[in-house]
């Protein structure tokens, strides 16, 4: 969705001292701080997922035939066979541990969303600055290509091209299988994501070009790259930060949606989306298949959004609470 507006609004002219102001504002926002802590925890959990699984004694790949019925393959016990051995129950038909799958899913989800965000921000910033500063034909060309990209039904394109492009990646030397698939996800998300940020940045740059310090720099005969990245970039971090913090959660959701539609990681690995897709066949009997990954996913996204909001408000009190 056209997140641009809200972010553009949220982007005040960044003064040097703003950094501290923002931090202090965020620090005084209890909700934001709680979320920040949760996020850090989530990242730690993701990073140390294998270790944690060992400690709890669960394994996302181990098939536990004993935990499922021999006829129909339904998990034995309520709520998907929740037991001491399987705190969140087991998968229908295979007896794989749900908790372990969640932890590893979190890992993949965060990996994709985070890297995609980083790339998006990089692309958006650089292209935005260039197009805003260079103006003229460059600007026009970039503008057109943005229109082009934004006009694509990106979900459809991503789905349609996943197969072939993943193969291309492997043929380009990326290890076959999940590495290529994950990379594909990261790339497509970034490719369809950068224009929004680029537009914002471009706008900022346009307004900034006329500013004294830039003109001064030009007058002093500074070289363009220097002006771009020494004078202008430092003053863009505010909108960029806001955009990044609000984009990450949308990427998490999108990634889930994509793997729900079946272009996620390959088995035996799994992800939130895949788990939810799998739950469809069983949830009228085993609702927990639906609730557990779903709730985790929502919590993840909400937490990110809360932090994003806090940052935005900190940067732009007008948009936030008085």
């Amino acid at each position, binding site marked *: 969705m056209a997140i641009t*507006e*809200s972010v553009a609004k949220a982007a005040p002219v960044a003064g040097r001292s703003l950094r501290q102001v923002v931090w202090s504002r965020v620090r005084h926002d209890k909700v934001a701080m709680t979320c920040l802590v949760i996020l850090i925890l989530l990242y730690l959990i993701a990073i140390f997922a294998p270790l944690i699984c060992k400690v709890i004694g669960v394994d996302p790949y181990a098939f536990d035939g004993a935990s499922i019925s021999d006829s129909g393959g339904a998990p034995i016990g309520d709520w998907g066979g929740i037991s001491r051995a399987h705190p969140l129950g087991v998968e229908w038909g295979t007896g794989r541990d749900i908790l372990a799958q969640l932890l590893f899913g979190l890992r993949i989800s965060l990996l994709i969303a985070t890297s995609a965000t980083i790339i998006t921000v990089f692309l958006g910033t650089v292209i935005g600055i260039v197009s805003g500063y260079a103006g003229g034909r460059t600007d026009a060309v970039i503008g057109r290509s943005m229109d082009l990209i934004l006009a694509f039904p990106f979900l459809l394109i991503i789905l349609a091209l996943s197969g072939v492009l993943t193969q291309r990646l492997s043929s380009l030397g990326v290890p076959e299988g999940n590495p290529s698939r994950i990379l594909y996800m990261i790339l497509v998300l970034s490719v369809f994501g950068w224009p929004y940020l680029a537009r914002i940045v471009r706008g900022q740059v346009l307004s900034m070009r006329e500013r004294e310090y830039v003109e001064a720099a030009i007058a002093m005969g500074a070289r363009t790259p220097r002006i771009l990245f020494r004078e202008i970039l430092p003053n863009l971090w505010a909108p960029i930060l806001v955009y990044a913090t609000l984009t990450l959660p949308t990427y998490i959701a999108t990634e889930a949606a994509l793997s729900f539609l079946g272009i996620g990681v390959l088995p035996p690995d799994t992800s939130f989306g895949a788990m939810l897709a799998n739950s469809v066949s069983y949830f009228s009997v085993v609702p927990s298949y639906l609730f557990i990954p779903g709730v985790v996913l929502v919590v993840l996204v909400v937490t990110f959004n809360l932090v994003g909001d806090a940052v935005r408000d900190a940067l732009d009190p007008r948009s936030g609470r008085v």
Partner: protein
Amino acid sequence: MSSYVVRRVLSMLLLLLLLSLVVFILFSILPTDPARLTCGKSCTPEIIEANRHRLGLDLPVFQQYWEFLKGLFVGRTYAANSPDPINCSAPCLGYSFRRGEEVLILIKDGLPTTIWLALGAFVFWMVAGISLGVYAAIRRGTWRDKTVMGVGLVGYSLPSFFIGLLAIFFIIIKWNLLPYPSWVPPQEDPVGFLQTMILPWIILAILYAAFYMRLTRNQMLEVLGEDYIRTARAKGLPERTVIGKHALRAGLTPIVTAAGLDLAGLLGGAIIIESLFSLPGIGSLAITSVNDADLPVIVGITLVTATFIIVANLIVDLLYAAIDPRVRLG
């Protein structure tokens, strides 16, 4: 003004041309061989070759593209040399051998459902989003504002396929409040239509509503700080008029812009929702075609959707000019 529109339309066509070319090149690298797909298990290389030729797949990509373009304007004939050539009259978006149907017709069949879905959701989210946004803005800082915004944030964070599944699980399976969704056109069975559409509408609307609520609130807060609002108050206008007329009108413009584009995007089909609720719209058509590697259909949908968005861009700009006299077209 009119010259502006002409210029815009021209650049629009150019963009579409470019887009169609990109789409063509993108899909020309797909691995599955449509010719292979048209021939069953008893298949010899000769047959595949023959089919490939009949579908014009043995031509170089750019020639295929040219054929496609020509088809758009003068229509085209497939398998011309076979006993039963397939005529696809202009504008010919291509022909799905998989489904034995013209792409345009397939899309036309799906469009009503998708339009109903999109429009319904649109109404829901605009009403909810704007009213709540205005409310929050007026009550800014109060606990009401905070609650509304909080709810909005959660709504904004709910993946639509998850709430979709939740809705199916609770409302349909557990509580039997609604029958299983099965699409019927409103004119045939209004009740069944509503029963089928209500959930998709709401679920599709939630995400957007949350977004528009935030957008509206920000807009209103900004506008309410404007001098001319103070002027309006100084005139002695009742607060109702000040908010409902002066402030809203000024705050609405960017919202209209976003809404136009989002609606256009939805007309391209809401893949997830349509699939979840098995609505025979463009989105379902798209996903099925992807699964079947039904290239002509995918290309067709991509182009149609893109057209919607690009046209919407133009309309929105014109609208913008209509709303804000300061905007000069050209």
